[in-house]
C-alpha cells in the first residue's frame, strides 16, 4: 500500500470551533493517506471527530468550524485552501459523498433522473441524451429494478434502501477518484445494510475508487475496509490493516472497543467495559487523551502526548509501544508486561 502514490493525503489536520468560552479543537493533528482503490475505515464513538474529518476533506465544514492547521492533498494538489467555486468543482467531479440520511442528500422537488443528469452534464460535459442513458446505467448498476421507469420518480417514491442506492449512484455519477461515505448504512435495517455495503464495495472495486468509510459499526468496517483508523477525542489512536486492528489491537482504547462488542462466536458472561466516557471537547485531558480511562496509564501518559508509533503491524499513539526510550525508562517497569498483545485483556474490575 505504501508503494502506491497516495490519492488522498491528510497531514496534521486540525479543525477548530471558536466559541465564546474558548476554542474547541474537534480534530487535533491527524495524518493519514488513502491509496487509489483502497477503502479506509474510520471508526470511533460519537464525538471522536470522525465525521468532521470527512466533512473537512469534502470542504463542507459549517462556520464557525474551520481548518486551523495542516493540509489536505488530493492527487498531490492542495484542496483545503481552494476558493469555494473551485472546491465545488472538485467536489462531485473528484470527490463523491454519501451521507447517513438519504432523504436529506436528495432534492425532494426534482426527480432522481434530473439530479443525476444534472451532475453528469455538469461534471462530464456530455449531451443530455447521453447523460440520461448513463444515468439509467448507473441506476441499473446499483441494483434498482426497472431503472428506465424509476429514473422519472421523485425521492419520496423510493424506500430507504432504494434511496441510499440512488445517493450512491449520484456520488459515483461523475466517476470520482474518492468517495467519502459518512455512516452510509446507519439509518438502514440490517438486511438492507448488507446489500448497501456489498454494493458500495463492488462499485468502488470496479472503478478503482478510493473510499473513506466513516462509521461507528466495527462489523461494517471489518467486512469492507482494507485499513482502519481508530479515532478518540479528535485524535488518531491507532491505524493499521483491518485484520490486525480487529484481531490484534494495540492501543488500549482499541482493545477495550473490540472487547465491548458482543460477539456471536465467543460465549462471554461479561463484556469488556471501558470505565467512564469520552471526554468533552471543553475538557480534553492532558497528555494522552485516553489516560483517565486507561488501565495501563502511567506518569508519562498524563503529561506527554504520544504520537503514532509502530506497534506490531499497525501504528498506535500509546507510550506502551515506545520502544526507543521506553525500554530504557524506569517508568515502564512491570506495566510493559501488561501490554495488550492479543485481543483479550482481563475485564476491568467493576
Amino acid at each position, binding site marked *: 500500500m505504501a508503494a502506491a502514490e497516495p490519492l488522498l493525503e491528510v497531514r496534521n489536520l486540525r479543525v477548530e470551533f471558536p466559541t465564546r468560552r474558548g476554542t474547541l479543537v474537534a480534530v487535533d493533528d491527524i495524518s493519514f493517506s488513502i491509496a487509489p482503490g483502497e477503502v479506509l475505515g474510520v471508526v470511533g*464513538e*460519537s464525538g471522536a471527530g470522525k465525521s468532521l474529518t470527512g466533512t473537512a476533506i469534502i470542504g463542507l465544514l459549517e462556520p464557525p468550524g474551520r481548518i486551523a492547521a495542516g493540509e489536505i492533498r488530493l492527487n498531490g494538489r492542495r484542496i483545503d485552501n481552494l476558493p469555494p467555486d473551485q472546491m465545488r468543482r472538485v467536489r462531485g467531479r473528484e470527490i463523491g459523498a454519501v451521507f447517513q440520511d438519504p432523504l436529506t442528500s436528495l432534492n425532494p422537488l426534482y426527480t432522481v433522473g434530473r439530479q443525476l443528469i444534472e451532475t453528469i452534464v455538469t461534471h462530464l460535459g456530455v449531451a443530455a441524451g447521453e447523460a440520461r442513458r448513463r444515468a439509467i446505467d448507473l441506476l441499473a448498476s446499483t441494483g434498482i429494478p426497472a431503472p428506465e421507469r424509476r429514473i422519472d420518480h421523485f425521492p419520496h417514491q423510493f*424506500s*430507504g*434502501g*432504494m434511496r441510499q442506492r440512488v445517493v450512491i449512484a449520484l456520488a459515483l455519477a461523475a466517476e470520482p477518484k474518492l468517495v467519502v461515505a459518512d455512516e452510509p448504512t446507519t439509518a438502514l*435495517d*440490517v*438486511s*438492507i*445494510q*448488507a*446489500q448497501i*455495503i*456489498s454494493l458500495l464495495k463492488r462499485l468502488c472495486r470496479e472503478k478503482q475508487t478510493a473510499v473513506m468509510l466513516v462509521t*461507528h*459499526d*466495527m*462489523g*461494517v468496517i*471489518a*467486512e469492507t475496509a482494507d485499513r482502519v483508523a481508530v479515532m478518540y477525542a479528535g485524535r488518531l489512536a491507532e491505524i493499521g490493516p*483491518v*485484520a490486525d486492528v*480487529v*484481531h490484534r489491537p494495540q492501543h488500549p482504547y482499541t482493545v*477495550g*472497543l473490540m*472487547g*465491548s*462488542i*458482543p*460477539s*456471536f*462466536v*465467543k*460465549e*462471554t*458472561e*461479561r*463484556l*469488556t*467495559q*471501558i*470505565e467512564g*466516557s*469520552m471526554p468533552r471537547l471543553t475538557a480534553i485531558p492532558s497528555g494522552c487523551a485516553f489516560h483517565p480511562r486507561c488501565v495501563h496509564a502511567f506518569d508519562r501518559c498524563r503529561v506527554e502526548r504520544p504520537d503514532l508509533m509502530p506497534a506490531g503491524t499497525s501504528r498506535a499513539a500509546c507510550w506502551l509501544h515506545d520502544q526507543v526510550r521506553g525500554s530504557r525508562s524506569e517508568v515502564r517497569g512491570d506495566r510493559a508486561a501488561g501490554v495488550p498483545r492479543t485481543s483479550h485483556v482481563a475485564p476491568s474490575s*467493576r
Partner: protein
Amino acid sequence: MSAVLRENPATLTGDVIVKARDIARFFDVSPPWLNRVLEGKRHQILRAVDGVSFDIRRGETLSLVGESGCGKSTVARLLVGLYVPTRGEVEFFGHNLREMNTAAGRSLRQKLQMIFQDPYASLNPRWRVADIVAEPLRAHGLLSDPQAIDKRVDELLLQVKLAPADKAKYPHQFSGGQRQRISIARALATHPEFLVCDEPTSALDVSVQAQVLNLMKDLQRDLGLTYLFISHNLAVVHHISDRVGVMYLGRIVELASRRAIFSAPQHPYTRMLLDAIPDLAMTGRARTPVAGEVPNPLNPPSGCTFNPRCPYANSRCRTEEPLLKLHRHAEGETLVACHAVEEGRIQDPGFRIQQK
C-alpha cells in the same frame, strides 16, 4: 464454559409470570372523514401486531428481534399497558392486564416497569435526578417520609453505579450511558420483578452499551429480574437472551432458545437476518444474497407475509398463512411459522454461527 451454550435453568423450570395470548393491536390510519366522503378514500387499518403469543418464565430474558416496523416495540407497550390490545389477553402473575387500573391492580403494577430507548427523551429535563428516581416511590405511595425516600434514592443510585451526590444534578449534566442508568434506577425503585426494555442500548456507543449490558446482567443475577428485551441488534440479543423471538410484520415467525436460534435457525427470515450481519470475525463466508425489503405493512402480502422475499416460497405460501408449530431438529426444538420447514422443503443447512 463448556462447549455448548449455557442454558439458563430458569428457562426450563421457572414459573410462568407473563402470558401473552394472541395479542393484537391495530391502528386506524384512515384519511380524514372529509377525504373519505369526497374522494372516496377507504378506511385503512395498520395491523402493527397481529396475533402474538408467548410465555415468560421468572428469571429469564426473552428477546424480540426484527427490523423496523415489525411491531416489536408495540408488543413492549402492550405488555406494560401503554396500549390496550385490540384483541387477545396479557396475563401477569395470573391477573389480566385489563384489571391493572383497579385498586388491586396497582400493587401488581409496581412489579412491572419499563426502560425506554432514548435516555434523552425519557427523563424530564426540569427535574433533578432525586425527583426522577423517587417518582415511582411517591406515585405508588411506597414511602412518604422524606428521609426514607432519600435513603432509598441513594441506594438505587449506588445499585446502578452512580454516586449519591449525583441526585442533585439535572439530566443534561449526564452522558447518554449515565442517563440510561438513571432510567434503570427509576425502573428499579418499586422493587419490580419484570422489566420491559425497549432498545435500551440502541442510542448508545458500543463501549457505553457494554457498561449498560453488564449492569443489566448483574442486576438480573442480584435481584432475580425477568426481562423482555426488545432489540434490532442480533449480537446484543445473542449476548443477553435466554430465548429469542423473531418478528416479521406483526407476527412471531420463530421462537426458540438462544442456542437453537443462533446455531440452527429454521425460518428463512431468521436465516436471512443472521446472514446479513456484518462479520467481525472476518471468516470471509459467502453471503446468500438477500433481495427485497420489508413490504408496506398497510398492504401486507397474502399467505405468509415473507413469501415475496423467500427463496422457498410456493403457491401454498402465497395463499395459506402459516401458524407457529413445534419443529424438532438436531439442536433442540423451535416454534416456527413456515410451510417449507414443516414440509421439509428446506434441505440447505444455511448459515449457522459456530458456537465455541
